[in-house]
């Protein structure tokens, strides 16, 4: 669909690359959060911290997936034969 390509496909690749980098960062952040152990010294407080960490890791995991999808879509759109 060349008409939709009123932008240089190179830019689509640039954004796709940036999306991939952000995806990697989100994935690493998720792993980093889960790699640490903290001892607050109190069971209810510990649960609140652990819950936050699990939710944050989950949000980052979901973000990893959505960034990967967006990157793939742009890479596809950047192909010369796209929409042909």
């Amino acid at each position, binding site marked *: *669909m060349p*008409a*939709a*390509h*009123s*932008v240089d496909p190179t*830019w*689509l690749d*640039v*954004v796709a690359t*940036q*999306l991939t*980098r*952000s995806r990697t*960062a*989100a994935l*690493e*952040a998720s792993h*980093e*959060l889960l790699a*640490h*152990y*903290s*001892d*607050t*010294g*109190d069971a*209810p*407080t510990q649960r*609140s*911290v652990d*819950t*936050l960490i699990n*939710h*944050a890791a989950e*949000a*980052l995991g*979901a*973000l990893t*997936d*959505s*960034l990967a*999808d*967006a990157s793939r*879509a*742009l890479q596809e*759109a950047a192909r010369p034969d796209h929409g042909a």
Partner: protein
Amino acid sequence: MTATLVHGDHVSCSRLGGSMRRESSRLRQHAHSLEDALGELAAWKGAEAGDSRLSIEASLRVLRATADVLDEAGAALQRYATDLAEGHELGRRAELRVQRAGLLLDGTRVIEPWGPASAIGSERRRGLVPEVQARVDLATAHVGRARGRLGREMTRLTQALSRPPLLAPAGQVEPLPHSELGRTGCAHPARL
């Protein structure tokens, strides 16, 4: 001795807090770079372009919101680590005072030792209980308040993470205002 009255490891809390803030900073940098790159696609038109842009903008908002949560949570943990370290020191001093007064600790309660004692010695120790108990209470209350603050902050931030973000109109990827974090939170863009 420090572990008797006040439990917990302030070093591990500080490390986790620092790690959260570092990751937050990295994620913010990536959000910034992504936003710059996205600006180059302004001329990209069509349904596919609109869908892609909307999806990326939603991801950007989640990226920023998550980074904000991690920064706030990390700062809260670092504050708690400081409070916990102070609590350990207060606890250590209180326990020392208990020991020097010839008294005992039953949990957080200061008690007189059981067994035979002279009337004068027993009277002297009994007279010291309120003052020594006050020292113990100071340490436990200090840490209790800190735990309350941390627990409330973690709960608030967890709720922020669980709420779906507002979907910005296409082409308007505004930074998420700090004050709106509690209302918008972040979630998987696919759930929008």
